[in-house]
């Protein structure tokens, strides 16, 4: 199960992670819906792009620009959070959406926890695979912690000051 578009849905994608004895060139990518590491995509691109559906995931130290020419080939792009405190994935997501115009599913994988979900959806993630030891129903609640935000990001193209008619000082008379 994952969270997608603010709902808990079944998921039939598999995330391929290279084991120690495997290499990007030689690893066997099983049939079906697989999200492969960027390195595997780069090594086996000719074969993989023949597939009807393929996904790719970026590690937090990899650059989204590496997918520039292929960006619309993927049914899903995932960004891995090796630890929830590694915030590079937020900028990767923002760049995928805002700079590389990626419009497909953008999924957060790895150490994905409830208290980061609100931020993640703001920078462009629309799918989340929360850590399996936590209740996914609880994680879903994290998407609605706040009902208003100040600044622009991918989800709100306009900052609050361009969206709302805000009031200035009304307290002048009290002094």
């Amino acid at each position, binding site marked *: 199960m994952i969270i997608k578009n603010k709902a808990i849905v079944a998921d039939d994608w598999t995330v391929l992670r290279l084991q120690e004895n495997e290499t990007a060139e030689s690893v066997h990518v099983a049939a079906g819906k697989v999200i492969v590491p960027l390195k595997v995509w780069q090594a086996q691109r000719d074969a993989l792009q023949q597939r009807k559906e393929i996904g790719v995931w970026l590690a937090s130290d990899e650059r989204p620009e590496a997918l520039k020419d292929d960006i619309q080939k993927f049914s899903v792009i995932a960004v891995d959070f090796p630890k929830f405190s590694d915030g590079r994935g937020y900028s990767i997501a923002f760049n995928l959406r805002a*700079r590389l115009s990626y419009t497909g599913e953008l999924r957060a994988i790895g150490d994905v926890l409830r208290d*980061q979900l609100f*931020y993640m959806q703001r920078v462009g993630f629309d799918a989340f695979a929360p850590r399996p030891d936590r209740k996914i129903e609880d994680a879903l609640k994290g998407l609605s912690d706040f009902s208003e935000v100040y600044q622009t990001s991918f989800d709100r193209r306009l900052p609050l000051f361009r969206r709302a008619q805000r009031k200035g000082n009304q307290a002048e008379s009290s002094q």
Partner: protein
Amino acid sequence: MYRYDEYDQQIVDERVRQYRDQVRRRLSGELTEEEFMPLRLQNGLYMQIHGYMLRIAVPYGLISSQQMRMFAHIARKYDRGYGHFTTRQNIQFNWLKLQDTPDILADLASVQMHAIQTSGNCIRNITSDEFAGVAHDEVVDPRPYAEILRQWSTFHPEFAYLPRKFKIAISGSKEDRAAIYAHDIGLAVTKNAQGEIGFRVVVGGGLGRTPIIGSEICEFVPWQHILTYVESILRVYNQYGRRDNKYKARIKILVKALGIDEFKRQVEVDWADLKGGPGTLTGQEVDRVASCFTDPAYETLSDHDSKLNEFKADNRSFSHWLQRNVRPHRIPGYVSVVLSLKKTGNAPGDATAEQMDFAADLADRYSFGELRITHKQNLVLADVRQKDLISLWQEASVYELTTPNIGMLTDIISCPGAEFCTLANARSIPLAKLIAERFESLDFQYDIGEITLNISGCVNACGQHHIGNIGITGVEKKDHDEWYQVSIGGAEGNDSSISKIIGPSFTFFQVPEVIERLLQVYVRERIEAERFIDTVRRIGHAPFKDHVYAADFIAQDEEVADKHIVAPAQYEVPYFSPRF
């Protein structure tokens, strides 16, 4: 000052609800401490020696009397009757219980306050000049921009898990009083030749383990573009700042590694498609926020008060106070008053609940209901009529807030140190007390003149020791005893510099004697009206070092062999502190 509208209030209220639930999950075991830690840190909650310490944001140091009374309330209800004002214009409470903290945040939200991003690897509270809006040398009032940046940085989704903490300071005067060169980003609001407002942007400054003076990345960013420009700096840092070693994770290390030119190039590449985009600031928004910072209802007054002069002539203490603690104001007949939290014997920056309530009363009666917290850990009443100075001084003296030592030797800047902080190697507050007692004589202090003395209990530099004329740092030695490094030559402001260590470290009781010897060299060598820092810069470190290490130190350490004895048992503090 800025007043929340319904949007600001809603965001803070929702934060309280979110945080209350996080605490509930922690207490029920649903969250591990490892998972809870970054969540509580983003809310300024540290686990310290005695329990939880909460750091509350005072955005750019500006606070209303009502908010100050709320601090007094928190001090009484949840803490031990006092709070500690910090070098980043915030306040810390040291003795809290985790289960009380959601209620404290709810209390704070009721007076438009919060503890959002006062810690953690995110954009911290934005600091500014304590005389913003009233300073005689101000070019542009930085407060509206500080507030706009506060809102922009609050819960910024992309920059909540940076490689390390991120501090922004903003100044709008000719003289930098916000230490902008010692910050991750320093902003100087200014005007160009055409009279247009913009920002000189300095990046990569910082203290801590690797003190570095910031470098100018852009001479003039027009005000419309400041949010997107800062966003690009943060994005480059978020992606490329080191995450493998927390001691090399601040932006200053990245800027040094890339060089300012390459860093700037990367920022401008990122900025290219943001510039002029929807994040661009509007004149309407600046006007809206600036409408909260218009002048209070100043009276038309003249600058001369004969009563004041008479009283001054008769009263030496008052005259000293006028000289040191009262500053000029851009409006005739008005002054700004610094309430000193540096009375000898007290912990620098500490205020009791009674003092807080009283300072709030003073603000209501004499300064349009507002106060400022300074990064030198004092309080400011910014808009006082000259003719009120005598009564203000008389009243404030009763509450020990008129020590005439602002900018002088005993106006010591100090972190909480080893009695409170788990990071510290050595005590800071008792050392500040020892030093203040040794040099309490006002005649001596006035002879020495302007000088800054900063104490940090460890290399993390919360006491900003690198930019003190004299800086003292607690260092660790293998025997777990307290040792202090002494450095000289640091300064903040327009001619910022990083101090240099004079030599091998000293024991707790040797430090005052070291300072005495440093001052002896200064008195011997100074010419005309030279300040301590000027003499250091002119003659260099060598004469100071030679004199300090020339003679042996008389052993005093045995006098208080067991430091635990002087700490009242009920506080269970490891060492004594003047507060107890």
